[in-house]
């Protein structure tokens, strides 16, 4: 579509959509906008890391050892003389990737499961949601530790395990949305037009439940990143030579007395990202007027 020079009558009549409204409200929330900026900044940096990193990823300099921040090494070096900024750039890639991919896994399972349960109703719904109830009561944190011990520290497994924990709330939110939507006329109209249930869910129900899904997704990413960092800190998550912010924090904590910058900078990066995501999530919740996505 070419950009019209003036606003046509049809466009003026259309008024503002829900999304435009939400965007306007979000922009007025200064913290959320800051969060969005920080996040976009980190994502761009993570994507460009191979070109941005000042040093090689595994480039050691044992003679140099740990040095505080300097002109050559902006954030200092670790005990092997590796550039901390480079490590944090690569670590951030993994931390963010775990956050986004595991959340995507959770999103896919949760939305599908919740939509089917809510749409089908009756006995299918009862069985599906009882299963969610039972899984909810499982102490998953302990199970993830167990999985990591039994099957070794495998990145794919990490994504799957974390995603498998986080889909439960998503399924509940989606089911509640679908239950209230499917009473409405446009769904009846779609049914009477002969659309298949799968098409109705995909084309009519999911788009209309997008608000809560987006809000909850934004709030899931930080909790997933925290979980990854928690596991890496215990030595059960990301394994060297790969690194993540959680792993860097764990190394930093070991030598913080002599080299505090090794703890402080990765800690700042992780905390800042979590802050941004949480503020953005809260802002989106207010902007889209979603209740109960948190608390």
């Amino acid at each position, binding site marked *: 579509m070419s950009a019209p020079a003036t606003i046509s009558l049809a466009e003026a009549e259309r008024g503002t959509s829900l999304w435009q409204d939400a965007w306007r409200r979000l922009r007025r929330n200064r913290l959320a906008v800051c969060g969005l900026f920080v996040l976009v900044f980190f994502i761009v940096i993570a994507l460009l890391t191979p070109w941005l990193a000042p040093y090689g990823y595994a480039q050691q300099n044992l003679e140099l050892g740990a040095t505080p921040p300097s002109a050559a090494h902006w954030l200092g070096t670790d005990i092997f003389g590796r550039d901390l900024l480079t490590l944090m750039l690569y670590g951030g890639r993994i931390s963010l990737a775990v956050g986004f991919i595991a959340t995507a896994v959770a999103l896919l399972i949760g939305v599908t499961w919740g939509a089917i349960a809510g749409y089908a109703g009756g006995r299918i719904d009862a069985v599906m949601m*009882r299963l969610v*109830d*039972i899984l909810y*009561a*499982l*102490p998953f*944190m*302990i*199970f993830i*530790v*167990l*999985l*990591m*011990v*039994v*099957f*070794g520290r495998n990145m794919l497994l990490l994504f799957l395990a974390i995603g498998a924990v986080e889909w439960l709330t998503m399924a509940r939110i989606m089911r509640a949305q679908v239950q209230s939507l499917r009473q409405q006329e446009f769904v009846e109209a779609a049914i009477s037009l002969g659309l298949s249930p799968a098409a109705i869910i995909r084309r009519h129900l999911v788009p209309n439940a997008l608000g809560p899904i987006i809000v909850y997704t934004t709030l899931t990413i*930080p909790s997933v990143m*925290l979980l990854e*960092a*928690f596991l890496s*800190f*215990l*030595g*059960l998550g990301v394994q060297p030579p790969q690194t993540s912010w*959680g792993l860097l*924090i*764990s190394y*930093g*904590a070991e030598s*913080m*007395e002599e080299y*505090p910058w090794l*703890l402080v900078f990765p*800690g700042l990066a*992780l*905390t800042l990202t*979590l*802050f941004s995501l*949480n*503020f953005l999530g809260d802002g989106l919740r207010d902007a889209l007027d979603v209740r109960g996505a*948190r*608390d």
Partner: protein
Amino acid sequence: MWHFVGYRVLQAIPVLLVVITVTFFLVRIAPGGPFDSEKAVIPEVQAALEAQYRLNLTLWQQYTAYLGDLSRGDLGPSFKYPGRSVNELIAAGFPVTAELGFYALLVALFIGGAAGIIASLRPNTAQDYVPMSAAMIGICMPSFLLGPMLILVFGIYLDWLPVSGWGDSPGDKILPSITLGSAYAAYIARLSRAGMLEVLSQDYIRTARAKGLPEWQVVLKHALRGGLLPVVAFLGPAFAGLLSGSFVVETIFQIPGLGRFYVQAAFNRDYTMILGSTVFLATLIVLFNLLSDILAAWMNPRLRAQYGER
């Protein structure tokens, strides 16, 4: 009410069975036998060891035998510490973890509850923003970062408090309890603020104010019970979080609790210890979820009525 309790108890049983079964088979299919790292042993010794740990039986026989042991409260012998049973290891570690969790919960409830109530009294003013921003920091600052930072500031730079141990020197319980409790204080602050805001706008609070009660009585006697309901419902999940959070905090502060044993067992591949403590912790978590749900239902007149009718 009894319907609700019965329903929740019935739900807890399959959960526990799933936990026991999944853990048992996960541990059994784990690569590497428990004695692989040892030097070559004479076949007779090997056989005797396998018999002692029932490894000579079929998987199904092992499973049923384990269930039988469990029903008698016996978690079996430890693989790595010969002569010690998993029960003994748990009995040694759990009191420490329970004490740590208790103090952390106190920190969370008092600081979080107070912050939430204070914030709810004047919403959207500085009195609201300051404690709520602090709560956001608490949520975003993971315990494995907060703990080392606290050690660095209060233990090393200021040299006010001991940096490790549990009950060895005065004050060494303060930093671990704060580290573990702070994230939950933050969640509780948010929950109690939301709960109090909702309650404070209701008619019965206006009535209480209209009949001339002093404000502190309105807040502490009338609003608090309803306003803290979400916090009570959160206690179950919080307890589960505290137990797994203790893995990290006990590692950081070198506290000889169950969390540290668990992580060590995970690294040592002490399978019976992993299995036993998983079952033990899972049972505790399921029980606490059950209790917190029942307590929340009992405190909530609407829910009580809903289940009372049936």
